[in-house]
């Protein structure tokens, strides 16, 4: 009985708490939000123990209520191997983001309410097993993020928040049209209305060309895919990301990088690919090429940045390129790597934004040029900074390596050229990370005012240590975590391929591109 309510409580606890926040005083709201996010973490831990990795292909812990019955829309939650790691990641990053926002002084009630509302919306997006419910949460999440960037951001905050909102909104309303189309298609084929994911997977489309030489399936795929690609963000739809990241407050940046971007890749895996697999197989090389461009372009632009946050933002474009490439490889290794990379990127980029935010609080600058030689002034801070940078550039022994390695292996199986080119992204990754580390931490102390900076406070230790332990844990022993969801990954392509016209026997090491 208790278990059925677990998923619902993951969403409802932060949602209700967000409303409660307004009734509290500013200081109280801060601690209350942190407490709620810790409760969320505990619930996440319960989920981690409850989730059965050996049946990861199936939806577990389902709970559903009828909502709009005549259109078949349900209020339905369930979890499987695809959403499990991301839900856990969300719950891990929430206390980090709230704790990182403690120094903020203005309008704390609304600030904390935004975080909690965002938490509920993100979790709901991952848990929803109804397409319309998913869409509702997907759009809901825009509001708190708009406010987070727009109210508590830096100088260009209004521009950045509007750009973020309009980019994402533009993509998602086109997805909405595709959703309508899917529902009518389902009605034509099965005679009833349903927006349940499992039933939508059963749809088949006629290969009739509809417009612009594209079939129905391809149009639906593109509508979904563009919405998700904006969120990822995939080159060339990434231009909102640097603005949003640079202007957002630390906590907002952490959640944006750690969780919000993953919604894009999650959406591709959950909706775009299984619903329109033939279209995906057709477009996969094209998407792979875009993601490779993203990997190299993001890395190169990151190398050229003079602002820490902007550099980390562009490194996200590069890292998320690996995630998409792993998906396009269409094999178990690539997808495992991609899923792992999503979690890894969440942890290490989240930690990087956290560290940059700590520097910003001390010195009110994000420019490389204002720092230098910090290692001698802030030894512990520098230790963490180097550690996280190593994780982000994929040093063996830390989490980043495992994900990137698997993605590269998977894409090598699919097409050696892809792996050959995108491996350069790893090299560039080391280049930009190390050059930032060098300019910020090492060398002579060029600014005397930096000498008086204080090293980490207990609060900052409290945030950084668990994150770094997780980074280390996933680097040394990813197996335990992988076991929780790799079942669903093995089953994933089988399920997708069953729908495509491709012969199942080609699954073993086949070269998809030449098909």
């Amino acid at each position, binding site marked *: 009985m208790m278990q059925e309510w677990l998923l619902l409580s993951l969403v409802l606890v932060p949602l209700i708490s967000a409303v409660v926040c307004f009734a509290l005083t500013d200081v109280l709201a801060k601690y209350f939000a942190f407490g709620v996010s810790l409760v969320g973490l505990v619930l996440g831990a319960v989920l981690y123990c409850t989730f059965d990795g050996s049946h990861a292909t199936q939806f577990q812990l389902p709970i559903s209520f009828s909502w709009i019955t005549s259109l078949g829309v349900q209020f339905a939650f369930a979890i499987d191997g695809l959403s499990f790691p991301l839900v856990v990641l969300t719950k891990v990053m929430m206390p980090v983001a709230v704790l990182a926002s403690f120094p903020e002084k203005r309008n704390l009630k609304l600030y904390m309410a935004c975080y909690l509302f965002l938490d509920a919306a993100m979790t709901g997006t991952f848990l929803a097993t109804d397409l319309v419910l998913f869409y509702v949460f997907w759009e809901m999440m825009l509001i708190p993020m708009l406010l987070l960037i727009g109210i508590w951001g830096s100088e260009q905050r209004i521009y950045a928040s509007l750009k973020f909102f309009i980019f994402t*909104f533009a993509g998602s309303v086109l997805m909405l049209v595709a959703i309508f189309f899917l529902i009518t298609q389902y009605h034509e084929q099965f005679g009833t209305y349903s927006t349940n994911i499992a039933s939508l997977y059963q749809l088949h489309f006629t290969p009739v060309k509809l417009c612009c030489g594209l079939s129905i399936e391809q149009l639906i795929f593109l509508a979904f895919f563009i919405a998700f690609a904006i969120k990822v963000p995939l080159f060339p739809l990434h231009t909102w990301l640097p603005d949003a990241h640079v202007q957002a407050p630390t906590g907002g940046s952490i959640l944006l990088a750690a969780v919000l971007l993953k919604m894009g890749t999650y959406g591709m895996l959950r909706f775009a690919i299984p619903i329109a697999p033939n279209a995906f197989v057709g477009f996969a090389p094209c998407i792979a090429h875009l993601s490779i461009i993203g990997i190299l372009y993001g890395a190169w632009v990151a190398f050229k940045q003079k602002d820490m946050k902007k550099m980390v933002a562009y490194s996200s474009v590069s890292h998320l390129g690996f995630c998409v490439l792993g998906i396009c490889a269409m094999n178990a290794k690539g997808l495992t790597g991609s899923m792992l990379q999503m979690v890894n990127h969440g942890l290490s980029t989240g930690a990087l934004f956290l560290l940059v935010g700590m520097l910003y609080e001390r010195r009110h600058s994000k420019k490389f040029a204002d720092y230098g030689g910090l290692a001698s002034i802030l030894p512990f801070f520098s230790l963490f900074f180097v550690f996280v940078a190593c994780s982000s550039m994929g040093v063996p022994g830390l989490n980043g390596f495992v994900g990137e390695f698997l993605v590269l292996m998977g894409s090598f199986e699919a097409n050696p050229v892809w792996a050959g080119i995108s491996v350069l992204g790893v090299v560039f990754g080391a280049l930009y990370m190390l050059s930032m580390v060098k300019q910020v931490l090492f060398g002579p102390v060029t600014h005397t005012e930096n000498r008086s900076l204080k090293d980490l406070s207990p609060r900052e230790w409290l945030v950084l240590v668990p994150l770094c332990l997780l980074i280390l844990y996933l680097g040394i022993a990813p197996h335990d975590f992988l076991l929780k969801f790799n079942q669903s990954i093995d089953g994933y392509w089988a399920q997708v391929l069953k729908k495509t016209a491709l012969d199942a026997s080609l699954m073993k090491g086949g070269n998809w591109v030449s098909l």
Partner: protein
Amino acid sequence: MNVFFEYFFFPLSPVLALVASGLLLILLECVTEEGMKPLKSLVALLGPILAIYFTWSLSREWPVAFTQGLQSAAPVWLMEFSKVYRLDEMSLSFFWAIGVFLLVTQLFFHSFYDKWNEKNELLILSEFIAVGMMLLVSANDLVMLFLGLELMSLPTYVIVGFRREDVRSSEAGLKYFLFGSFGTVLLLLATAILYMQFGSLKFEQINALMGAQLNQPSLLLALGLMVGAVGFKIGAAPFHMWVSDAYEGAPTSITGFMGSAVKLASFGLAIRVFGGLFLPLVGKWSTLLGWLAVLTMFVGNLSALVQTNLKRVFAYSSIAHAGFLLLGVACLSKDAANTQLIYYYLVTYGMMFLGVFAILSLLEKNGRVLEFKSLSGLGFKNPVLGIALALFALSAAGIPPTAGFFAKYFLLFEAVKANGTFFVVLAVVSNIIGIYYYLRVLVHLYMKEAEGVSALAEESPSTYLAIVVCALSVLYFAFVPAQLGVF
């Protein structure tokens, strides 16, 4: 007596309640000299309250199935006024909405109560406007349609020009009057042509005869004139010119009433005309209305982008919404279910619009100019107003979890079902354009620094009540669309 009660009095009771309260107000005005404002307000409030109560008891007595629809040969219930007045589920649900809109508006009418309203004309006229609306949405006869429309429109022209010493208000009243009466003339002309053609004014009789002569030129002329008449009334492009000026010039709370209730009744007219009278000609008008709808959305959303006056912004926003609603009307067919979708959209949009103008009237009362910049910092100074206005803006933009999203969702889904995917794509593109000015409201509420503006000094409990009711209904109907009779 009993028969009289059952077949005359009871079915007309919502209308009669409003008439009675209007007449009683006039009487009170003659009998009493000055003062007694509370009593008059009470009598005024009693009208819509009783109308809502009678509507509720009517719908309980006649649990008619909406599924039978407009087109069904035997309308659910027809009154023997030689069948000019038609009471079906559509009219009942519109009665309900008209009553609620009138009630909520009266809660914040008094924001300029004392200044211009010495004789309570405003309350009296608003009761009669509501009577006209009810007759309009339940008309089953072209003359009745005309009477209802005029009874609604004439007092509206008057109250739009109510701020007599204000040039803008007089201009608005005159402009609205000229455009409105031009629309009415088109309606009359269409009526004349139809009467010439079919020798009848009853919807069913015209309907039945129409099927045989679909390509008659005079019939097409009547249809074209009717499109113009309805277009003027709902403010669809290219008949939208009056909307922004009339909405801006009218007293703020009147604008709220115009954008919600008058819009609702005008779409009641559109549904009766296209979903009832001209239904056999559906092939002729549905694509035309689809294009007009898309044009209206783009005109509304693009024009609103460059406005700085909040009343004008929401006036253009209401044009854009009229476009969405018109797309719903364009999808009307023999399946009556989409009448409910249009109704759901109208009610949720109307609550949003009323809430916005309740807030604006409160701002105006505090001596603020109604520009974007006067919203700056309001979100933190007056949290209730801030959250409510943000909610209304999000609902108008169609972002979940507000009712505005579901209204758009149902309507656009219906359009996709009716093979209008192309129109839907254009509609969402216009919605993307429109998102910018709705977000500007949020930007000013929360993100801009207040320039020496303090919290609102003059409070008004009943206006707050209206705002909270609107805000809660915008949230509530999102989660339980069934409560509005949809699904």
